């Protein structure tokens, strides 16, 4: 509906300065008139009337008033509805979720304010995004874990679009900023620049009865083998948390979780903090579960445990090097390990066998007993990797510990079995427990060691893997003959053979000489020869200054310890992995690698069937692979590119994660916010009662017409001045 407004105004061509000067002159005129009225007692009324008339006429002559006609219309007010879009609002609330309640309330506001022009946005971690109140809900993994209203308000301030007449915030109040604990000053700072009322709709009035793992924090960096403090905050609302058991466990592939620590949280004032000292023995990403035993009455079981992927650093590589006898191969390997400052090596070499006759008393010998039982029981977990070089497991009483050594590998340790006459079939390994973690079978063979020189052949996997890349770049694929080989069986399923014997066969395949394999959480390498010292010292090695030995072992130890330089691919989760939602992993092939990617995702738990997906990756490019919905838990993803050994990446999927850690509502914050901005705060049920802002007036047409020509105003002013002059004379004023 349009209306016509009529009004008067000075002529449009007058500047405000001119109007001001005119007004001052008239004021001066009036002041003089008042002085004159005091000086005379005669005709004062006539004097005042003529003076006032002259002043008005003068002002009219100066301002030349015009008539302004405006055709206007009323439009609905622009309003901004900010709906909390964080994943926290997926917390259950009765039969629905907080998000359902928030959307219902937002719909009620929009519906009640029929004359308004609402703009509905979802706010979370960054700039608010448009939200359709009737559209399909977004996947939980796409929702931000927290709600930052301060950022949303800052974005509104910077928006050049039409300013809203009111803002409506729909939330449970558990905001990241301003935080529920914010003081008045902080609250005002967050709302600064908003000159319209902020109304708030409180989605939840009362916090649910809930015990939760509210926060997990590592005090300092997690370093393998080193004790570090894990601070766990347990939150408690409406349940009895006098003594809540808390367990910290490490999730492992193919086996039950390993308990790292247990404790009891005794909550007072709604929360308790428990500090655990934990040791993670393996470097890399390790998934740690922190779980509480929920007290009765807990209504949100989804936040009773957290799954935290810890990036465990390694200060130094702790290595156990055990050799069955001193040889040039042992010499070369020890020299290489010693030269590496990052390696903390413990070495035991068998220098005297039972049949040796040193012809000396024990005190004349610098020999110590080989502490096999101590090493392979108590101290074993403290090593990152074990190298068994030409070592007879039976003669040196290692056989009884092979089961433990196999478990050590399965729990994340590294193992390299290096050849020699006393290794593999020559060392009592056939049929042992260690066979199950080795990448090659170790059958009984006679003779166990083949002393006929031969040049090992590089396989397709050997060419593809970064493990051998630098060696092959230096030496070429035509390796020099190696003087001897252990006779071994076929590669285990899933293992990769990098080098094979040129003539010895196992079935239809060449006999493995160098093979890599994974065994649950750990990795193992079988090097069926004692000849790699020839890459460091020898006639052929002289051509490359003996660098081949170091390059080979750098690759082997690097792969064993998951050094990213030697992985065939890098894997990462796209966004957050939310349990029950489709998860995507991004795979990037290592430089020089392209082809089919096989991605196997396996739960870090006993006997779980893996999910397998295939895709094609181009060199240096990323490919995103959908692995479907995963349930809450820890996972390991192994990505194989072409024939190269798989790269491993561990990650966690949580139901609520950080977003659900604190389920408390904060209606008080919403009330304070409304009060501070002049708005109103209502419950979700009362959303429709919020006062709609007044409609805005919009001018559609404006016309200006002079009330009289300028000469008329001048003539009137002159006449009025003349009349006033006459009256003054009659009043006796000069």
């Amino acid at each position, binding site marked *: 509906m349009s209306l016509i407004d009529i009004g008067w105004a000075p002529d449009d061509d007058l500047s405000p300065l001119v109007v001001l000067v005119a007004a001052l002159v008239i004021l001066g005129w009036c002041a003089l008139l008042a002085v004159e009225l005091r000086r005379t007692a005669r005709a004062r009324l006539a004097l005042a009337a003529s003076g006032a008339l002259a002043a008005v006429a003068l002002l009219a002559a100066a301002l030349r008033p015009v008539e302004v006609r405006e055709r206007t219309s009323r439009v609905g007010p622009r309003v901004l509805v900010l709906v909390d879009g964080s994943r926290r609002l997926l917390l259950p609330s009765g039969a629905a979720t907080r998000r359902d309640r928030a959307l219902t309330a937002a719909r009620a506001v929009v519906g009640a304010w029929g004359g308004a022009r609402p703009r509905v946005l979802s706010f979370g971690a960054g700039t608010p995004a448009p939200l359709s109140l009737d559209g399909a809900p977004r996947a939980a993994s796409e929702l931000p874990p927290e709600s930052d209203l301060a950022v949303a308000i800052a974005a509104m301030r910077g928006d050049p679009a039409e300013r809203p007449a009111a803002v409506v915030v729909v939330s449970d109040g558990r905001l990241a900023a301003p935080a529920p604990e914010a003081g008045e000053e902080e609250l005002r700072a967050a709302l600064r620049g908003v000159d319209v009322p902020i109304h708030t709709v409180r989605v939840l009035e009362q916090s649910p009865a809930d015990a939760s793992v509210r926060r997990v924090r590592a005090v300092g960096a997690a370093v393998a083998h080193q004790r570090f403090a894990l601070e766990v905050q347990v939150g408690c609302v409406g349940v009895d948390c006098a003594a809540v058991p808390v367990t910290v466990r490490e999730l492992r592939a193919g086996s039950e979780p390993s308990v790292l620590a247990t404790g009891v949280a005794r909550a007072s004032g709604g929360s308790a903090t428990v500090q655990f000292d934990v040791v993670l023995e393996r470097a890399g990403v390790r998934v740690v579960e922190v779980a509480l035993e929920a007290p009765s009455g807990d209504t949100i079981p989804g936040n009773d445990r957290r799954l935290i992927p810890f990036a465990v650093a390694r200060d130094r590589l702790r290595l156990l090097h055990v050799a069955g006898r001193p040889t040039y191969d042992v010499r070369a390997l020890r020299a290489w390990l010693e030269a590496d400052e990052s390696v903390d090596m413990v070495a035991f070499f068998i220098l005297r*066998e039972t049949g*040796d006759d040193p012809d000396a008393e024990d005190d004349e010998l610098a020999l110590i007993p080989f502490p096999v039982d101590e090493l392979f029981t108590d101290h074993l977990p403290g090593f990152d990797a074990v190298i068994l070089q030409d070592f007879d497991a039976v003669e040196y009483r290692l056989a009884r510990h092979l089961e433990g050594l196999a478990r050590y590998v399965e729990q994340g340790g590294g193992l390299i079995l290096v050849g020699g006459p*006393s290794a593999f079939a020559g060392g009592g390994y056939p049929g042992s427990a260690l066979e199950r973690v080795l990448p090659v079978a170790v059958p009984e063979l006679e003779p166990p060691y083949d002393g006929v020189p031969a040049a090992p052949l590089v396989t397709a996997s050997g060419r593809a893997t970064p493990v051998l890349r630098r060696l092959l770049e230096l030496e070429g694929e035509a390796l020099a003959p190696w003087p001897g080989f252990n006779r071994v069986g076929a590669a285990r399923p899933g293992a990769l053979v990098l080098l094979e014997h040129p003539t010895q066969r196992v079935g239809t395949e060449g006999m493995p000489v160098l093979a890599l394999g994974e065994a649950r959480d750990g990795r193992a390498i079988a090097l069926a020869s004692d000849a790699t010292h020839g890459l460091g010292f020898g006639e052929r090695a002289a051509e490359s200054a003996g660098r081949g030995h170091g390059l080979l072992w750098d690759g082997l130890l690097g792969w064993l310890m998951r050094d990213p330089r030697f992985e065939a691919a890098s894997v990462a989760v796209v966004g957050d992995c939310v349990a029950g939602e489709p998860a995507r992993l991004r795979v990037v092939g290592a430089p020089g690698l392209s082809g089919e990617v096989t991605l196997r995702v396996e739960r870090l738990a006993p006997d779980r069937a893996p999910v397998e997906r295939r895709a094609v990756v181009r060199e240096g490019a990323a490919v995103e692979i959908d692995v479907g919905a995963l349930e809450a838990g820890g996972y390991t993803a192994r990505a194989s590119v072409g024939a190269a050994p798989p790269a491993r990446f561990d990650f966690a999927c949580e139901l609520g994660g950080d977003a659900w850690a604190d389920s408390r509502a904060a209606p008080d914050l919403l009330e304070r916010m409304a009060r501070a901005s002049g708005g109103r705060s209502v419950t979700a049920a009362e959303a429709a009662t919020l006062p709609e802002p007044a409609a805005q007036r919009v001018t559609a047409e404006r016309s200006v017409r002079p009330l009289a020509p300028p000469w008329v105003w001048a003539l009137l002013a002159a006449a009025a001045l003349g009349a006033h002059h006459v009256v003054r004379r009659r009043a006796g004023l000069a």
Partner: protein
Amino acid sequence: MSGRPDPGRRLALAALATLALPAPASAQGSGAFQCRLLSTGGIRPSGVRASGAARWAWEVSRRTSAPTRMVRSVVRADQRALLAEPFALWSGSDAIPPLTGAERRGLERFLRMGGMLVVDDSAPAEGAFSRSVRAELAQVLSEAVPVQLEPNHVLYKSFYIVERPVGRVAGPERIDAIVRGGTAQVLFLQHDLLGALAREPAGGWALDVTPGGARQRQLAIRFAVNITLYLLCSDYKDDQVHAKWILQRRARARR
């Protein structure tokens, strides 16, 4: 367990070795120690002392777990074969003729790649061999200056706990060495170690030890074994796990 080396077999192999028959590679592996004699200036090591090389390997095999090859092997400094293994023994009694360019390059490459050279003066009283070899090596490795090894050097405890070097002659109590990268790569012996190990073709020791006694020869053999174990294990016996034991034993031996 089939395929595992048993002590009887090792001794049998050692006995065979005295007849200069090489042990089968399948028993030794590819990294077995061999005492190779270095030849320069066309002078081929010969005479009774040359037999000491095989005896050296035999003693190592008999006393330790280190696999050895007990063959008499001579390698020329200008041959590429010098690089086949990281050990050579340079023994002599007279001053050597100046090295040729090829010999110098061969020795330099051998040492720069990490080879170990033992210079054993058969006539330490004259010292002509030692002096000439030192002069030549000073040109091969111009940056390396021989230094005296400390009494607690790992060479004195790499297998036996020994107090001092001993050979056919008692010689000086300390030895000089060229140390590179923390490793004693060239040992200068003035003890005629090879002489103490030399054997008559018919059996028995070829040369008497001075001042004499079975104990001296035993100590000479022990020192030779220690050199081998130092070669194969470098400073293994300096590792922390051994320190306490060795200190205790040294203390008991001195009491």
